[in-house]
Structure formats: structure tokens, C-alpha cells
């Protein structure tokens, strides 16, 4: 490793670090949504990958069928997909809260299969093109940075920080956190806890969809895009500590960078390195890096 490190010019290394950060932005946004949902609903949302894919497809459909440009889709698609999440929570998930976590996992796993199968049926698997709304880029010292990638990092940082602030620093967030600890007490204070939970799920799903819209111009809009990602994002959430908002954000970015470096030194292993990190972390810190053992 060290020998190879010397062999790589520092400039190329900077480039790879930056790319890692960009990928990390997706991991952070996705795992953030998962962490919010797990933290407040105690549901492990396996549908998250499918909802990310739905976000990308919503953006594509808005553009092709309704002529709504990217910037409109950035607002509309998360709302639409979030609304489907609300419906899902009301109709299905709600029935499982009194049971073990595992049932939530299994239910959402089934839903993910259904959604993916449906989109495959409708749109095939080769994927659909989505034009880049921010073509061009900046030539930095060490690499060519496409404008759109820069936008991804900025957008993701803003969204992550905004969510963290809302949950940890605002009154609404304090209700939410209280409701997870003692729903009965919060209910007694006259707050509609079930509705709050429903909206939280919708919000988490919306975050996934937003990540999907951001991904649409960078990757191909394909029914398979979610299932490729979901397992990795799971690992990120577990490493960060299930339910920890800050943990999900920091781990997301950090693992993006670790993965980026692996792509230079041992590219074949870049899909696996996250799981190695996960196994090690769980051995040392069972509740994840930022989690609190229950």
C-alpha cells in the first residue's frame, strides 16, 4: 500500500478524494433518510433504494411528460414520492409498529421487490437518459470538476445540515425526538403523534427521492439503480449508528472517501471495502460509531 501511495502523484490523489466526497454526498443523503426513519419509527426501510429510484423516475417523467425542468423536479419529485410514502405508511407500515423490527424490514423488502419489478416491466432495464442541467465544468489544478458534481456536493451538504438542524435544534425536532422516547407522554400534551410519525416517514422517503433526482443527470435513470445502492447505504447507517442523524451524515461522507481511495489502490475491492469497515466497527463499537447502545 505505502509503496503504491508513493507511486501516485498527490494531484491524482486530490482528484480521487474529491470524487469520493461526491459519492459520499449520495451515501450521506440516503443514509440520512434511513436514519431519520429508523430513529423515529424504528423501521428499517428496505424500500429506500426503490424510493430513490422512484425519485429519479419522477424527475424523468416530469420532464418527458409534463415538461417540468430539472429545477422544478427537484421540488416536485420529492413531494410526489414522499406522498406515496405517506400512503404506504398509512396503509401498511402502521400495522407493524407493535411488532419486532424484523417485520418492518421484511415488509419493506417485499415492497421494494414489487416497485422494482413494476418499473422494470414499464421501462425496461437499460435505463433512460436525463440531460445534464449544468453542463460544463471548472478545470482545477488536479482535475476537471464538472459543474453538476460540484452542485451535488453543495446541495447535499445544505440538505444534510438543514435536516440535522431541524431535528436537533428546533422545537419541531424536539417533539419528534420526544415522541420516539415516550409517545404516550407526548400524545398527552396534545400532539398528534401518529400524524407526526406518518409525516416523518414521508419526509425520509422524500429525502431518498431528492437524492434520486440529484442522481438522475449523473447516472442513468434505471430501475436497477436503487437495489445496487441500498445494501451499501445500509452498511453506512449501521457504521454510523442506527438512528443517529449526525452519524449517518459523517459516515456517509467518510465512507465515500474511503471507497474513493480503494478505487485507486485496489479497485476490485471498492464494492466490498465498506463491508469490511462495517464488520470491524461492529466488533469494536457494537452500536456503531455515533450510536448509543440501548
Amino acid at each position: 500500500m505505502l509503496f503504491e501511495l508513493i507511486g501516485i502523484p498527490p494531484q491524482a490523489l486530490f482528484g480521487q478524494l474529491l470524487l469520493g466526497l461526491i459519492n459520499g454526498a449520495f451515501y450521506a443523503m440516503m443514509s440520512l433518510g434511513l436514519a431519520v426513519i429508523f430513529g423515529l419509527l424504528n423501521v428499517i426501510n428496505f424500500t429506500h433504494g426503490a424510493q430513490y429510484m422512484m425519485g429519479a423516475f419522477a424527475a424523468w417523467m416530469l420532464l418527458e411528460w409534463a415538461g417540468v425542468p430539472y429545477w422544478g423536479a427537484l421540488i416536485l419529485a420529492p413531494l410526489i414520492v414522499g406522498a406515496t410514502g405517506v400512503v404506504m405508511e398509512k396503509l401498511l407500515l402502521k400495522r407493524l409498529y407493535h411488532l419486532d423490527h424484523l417485520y418492518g424490514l421484511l415488509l419493506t423488502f417485499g415492497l421494494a421487490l414489487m416497485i422494482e419489478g413494476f418499473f422494470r416491466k414499464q421501462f425496461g432495464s437499460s435505463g433512460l437518459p436525463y440531460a445534464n442541467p449544468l453542463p460544463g465544468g471548472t478545470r482545477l489544478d488536479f482535475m476537471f470538476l464538472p459543474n453538476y458534481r460540484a452542485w451535488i456536493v453543495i446541495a447535499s451538504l445544505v440538505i444534510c445540515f438543514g435536516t440535522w438542524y431541524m431535528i436537533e435544534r428546533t422545537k419541531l425536532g424536539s417533539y419528534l425526538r420526544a415522541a420516539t422516547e415516550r409517545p404516550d407522554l407526548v400524545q398527552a400534551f396534545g400532539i398528534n403523534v401518529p400524524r407526526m410519525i406518518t409525516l416523518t416517514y414521508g419526509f425520509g422517503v422524500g429525502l431518498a427521492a431528492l437524492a434520486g433526482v440529484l442522481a438522475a443527470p449523473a447516472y442513468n435513470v434505471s430501475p436497477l439503480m436503487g437495489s445496487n445502492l441500498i445494501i451499501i447505504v445500509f452498511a453506512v447507517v449501521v457504521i454510523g449508528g442506527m438512528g443517529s442523524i449526525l452519524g449517518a451524515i459523517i459516515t456517509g461522507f467518510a465512507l465515500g472517501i474511503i471507497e474513493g481511495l480503494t478505487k485507486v489502490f485496489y479497485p476490485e475491492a471498492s464494492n466490498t471495502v465498506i463491508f469490511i469497515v462495517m464488520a470491524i466497527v461492529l466488533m469494536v463499537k457494537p452500536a456503531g460509531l455515533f450510536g448509543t447502545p440501548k
Partner: protein
Amino acid sequence: MSTTAVTAATGPKSESAKNRELIAFAVMIGIGLVAPIAIYPVFLMKVLCFALFACAFNLLIGYVGLLSFGHAMFFGLAAYVSGYSVKAWGFSPELGILYGTACGAVLGLVTGLLAIRRQGIYFAMVTLALSQMVFFYCLQAKFTGGEDGIQAIPRRPLFGIINIQNDLTFYYVVLAIFAAGFLVIWRTVNSPFGQVLKAIRENEPRAISLGYRVDHYKLLAFVLSAALAGMAGATKALVFQLASLTDVAWQMSGEVVLMTLVGGMGTIFGPVIGAAVIITMQNYLAGFGEWVLVIQGFIFVVVVLAFRKGIVGEIQAWWERRATKA
């Protein structure tokens, strides 16, 4: 977190209950003996391999309360090593299967030592992580043949005398393997060891306070489950004369969860029924192309929402309700 809700509560069994299970087992094997008259033997062998795999998985989830999301690593790795030993080293089939089973057990010991220290979702995630690493190893290692897998694994005569080229002959061999594996599980579950496992599932702290060395019990159960999963995988490699990445991918781990869930977690026959249902479905729905995924997902959803005990579990519950009424 507790996993008690996962399984149908099963207390210590009376002798008559055990006898009933033995009768059911005899009926099952009887059906197995005559089934190839009507049904294609290769298909039946596939069902048996997956049934054994699901039973092995059920030993953990159903009787110890541990959800492994990485059981494909034992199944797949055993398929590879037995396939390779038979093809490249000229092992006889029985040696190949034994070797695969042993490798499953060793892998189970190594991963078990790491995994059993965690519970619930974290246990699931550790097993997932470990199985992803095994997947990576199988993808990169030379002997596995990448995504082509190990193909054309020969079926040499069993014990040097029984010709298993013929699918029907081999079917009875597979049926015997399945029956042996099933009986091991049945015996384990109904032994004092099995009672301790259930005690751990129901209330781990109490089991510890009673002086049981919980980790030893869990590890032993984990290794046993891994070994049997390995046996299933090794047999499958010989049935299809193929070992491939499919067997070791995380989707395979998901599939075995589905089988066990549909059949009934924590019931001794549930996984067998579940495996039969899912494999049949995959086989006969293959013509529907894209819809298979949708249908499979739908079954997941329906089972989780409405039939959490699974097919066998629901039938048992219905039976007991009737019995108490009468």
C-alpha cells in the same frame, strides 16, 4: 431488542407431540418417495436442497431467535468447494459433500465467533457484512471461475458403485441426505440442548443467570446451522453440476428468509413447505417474466401483514384453536 415476537411460542413438547411430528416426517418422506412418478426429479432435488437450506436457517431464527442475513455464504462456499474438489481433485460425490459440509462448519465457526456477540439487527448486519466478504472472495479467487462459476461438475458413482448419472437414482440419494439433515435438526430441537436454545430465545438474561454459558450454546447452534446449510449447498452443486455466484450472493440470503417466513418460522416443517412453495412459484411463474419480482414481493407483503406465522404456523394455530374450543 427482543426477538420473541418473531416466532410462534413453542414450549417443551409432550411425547405425543413428538410422535405426531415423527408421523408427519414419515408422511413427508413417503410423499418424497413416490413424488418422482409425477414430478420431474431435478425439480424435486432443487426443492429438497433448498428445503434443507431453509431448515438449517430456521434452526437459528426459529429456535435461537437470530436472524442471519448472510446464510448464503455457507451455502455458496460449500457449493464451490465441493464442486471444485469433485471436479479438480477427483473426489467422489460423498467425499465432496462431506468436504463442503466441513467447510461450511469451519466458516460457521469463524464467522460465528464474531457474529454471536451481537443481537437483533446488528447480528443480521454483521452476518451480511461477513457474507459480502465471502462473496468478494469467491468473485476474486481463481478456483471459483468468476461469474462463469464451476461448470460441468461430474457425477461420479456414489461410494464407487452406485451410478448417479441417472436423475432418478440421484434423487433418492438427495432425499436420503435431506432426511438425514432434517432428523439432525429435529433431534437437536427436541434435545435438552434445544430446550436451552429456546430458553435463550425467550429470555437471554435469565438463561445467563441460570448459569448457562449462552455464547457456547449460540455458537454451537450457529456452527450446526452453517454446516447443514453447507451440506445443502454442496448437494445442490452436484445436482446442477454447477456452482455459481448466485449461490453466495446476498439475494440468496434474502430468498432463504422468504422461504422460512412463508412456511413458518420456528416450526419444524415450515421451511420445507416454504421452500417447496417458493421454488414451485419461481419455476412456474418464470413465463411471466418481469412479473415474478412483483409477485414475489407481493407474497412477502401479504405474509408479513396477514400470515405472520407462515403456512405451517397458521395451520398449527388454527388446529390449536379448534382443539381448545372442542
